[in-house]
């Protein structure tokens, strides 16, 4: 099976334990990996987005906070700003909102994944990493419904396993892997 040019973007969601998982993920990506990676990491509403500085150390992908109306570019990774939901419009631009929390979270992984699924349809890869709740499960299901690929961190290898477990219970996912393996798979998918 060939994946040539199928995928246009990656969305990833992480909660408790996410920092280490994201570091490992970024460390494992090829030099030339250039699909946009759009990330929701649950974070305290008033936090400075320190993750940006940390993740920028780990890969050539330029990591920054998502801005409203921005179009995701190859070669960049985007983090949802603290205290904003990040949505993807049908034309792929970002929208930020301060609506109610979803699954007790703002940003919420479901909000990103559900809107991204509709925008990118079968050209999207969704990844659920470590976390302590069930945010992202509905979103990952929607990604599958639109023909995208669903990847979940192996709960055995997750710092906190509830979020990956919830995702696996909700959807028939394509891959359950440790984070190093997820990086290797992304490399393969991006190369086509």
């Amino acid at each position, binding site marked *: 099976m060939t994946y040539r040019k199928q995928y246009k973007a990656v969305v990833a969601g992480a909660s408790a334990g996410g920092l280490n998982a994201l570091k490992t993920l970024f460390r494992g990506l090829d030099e030339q990996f250039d699909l946009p990676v759009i990330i929701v990491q649950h974070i305290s509403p008033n936090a400075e987005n320190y993750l940006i500085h940390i993740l920028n150390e780990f890969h050539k992908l330029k990591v920054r906070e998502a801005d*409203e*109306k921005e179009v995701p570019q190859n070669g960049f990774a985007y983090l949802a*700003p603290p205290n904003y939901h990040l949505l993807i*419009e*049908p034309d792929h631009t970002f929208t930020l909102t301060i*609506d109610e929390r979803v699954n007790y979270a703002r940003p919420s992984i479901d*909000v990103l994944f559900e809107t991204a699924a509709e925008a990118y349809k079968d050209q999207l890869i969704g990844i659920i990493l470590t976390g302590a709740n069930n945010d992202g499960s509905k979103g990952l299901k929607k990604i599958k*419904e639109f023909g995208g690929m669903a990847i979940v961190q192996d709960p055995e290898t997750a710092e906190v396993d509830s979020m990956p477990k919830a995702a696996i219970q909700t959807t028939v996912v394509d891959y359950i892997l440790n984070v190093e393996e997820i990086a290797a798979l992304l490399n393969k998918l991006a190369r086509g």
Partner: protein
Amino acid sequence: MKKNQNESLENQDIEIRLLVDAIYQKYGYDFRNYSQAHVKRRILNRFNLSGMKNITDMIHESLANRKFVDQILMDLSITVTEMFRDPAFYKALREEIFPLLQSYPFIKIWHAGCSSGEEVYSMAILMKEEGLYERTQIYATDFNPVIIKQAKDGVYPLNRMKEFSVNYQKAGGKGSLSDYYTINSGDAKLLEILKKNIVFATHNLVTDSVFAEVNLVICRNVLIYFDRYLQDRVIKLFVDSLPEGGLLCLGSKENLQFSSHYHEFNPLIPKEKIYIRKYLL
């Protein structure tokens, strides 16, 4: 299955556009240039709660039942707010902007999209503590009449006051937030003296025009819901409301960079998204 998904997505999007159009044609509330993904989430949320069979049923209900439309207006209003939200912004107002206003004999402020009023009262408290409030007039507007009524009442759940107090202190509050409200069965009611110089009114940024010249416009976390075209229209309203040297305050993730009116402003405190209307030579 994938094909079915794509087709039902397309159909659903068409139905939502028709609903938005029906609300505009019948009631004049125009959400056509709001963020599509946002409007869709809110409307589907209402749809799921409504128990209706499809979105088209929501169109019929909207045309026939004003109460149902009021509910949708509430869904599309931004009701998440807090007193002294982003304390650093209020601190910047207090320390860097108010000294500029000190010399004004009279200060007019337009708080556009004020929602339930928490941030309007924050401003009133701040100005009181800096000795500016007595010569200030605040126009606080929102498109939603139900929300403006709430703002006018100035009554908030007591259990939110702790969070608001923390913000108030971080914003450089000079006393205690509890100096500014009375407690009544689980609610905190803001003091009437804070309301003295505030006019609460409905005004729709999408369809209404300029109503006053003001020295300071505050419009935070409203533009993020609009598409570029509508953002530009609204920023034009602010340009037309502000004299040279007038100030515009946006939300922390909003900026003028892509607006066609960018050249009308200079960033004054970039980190807090405070802009000053340029002086024309």
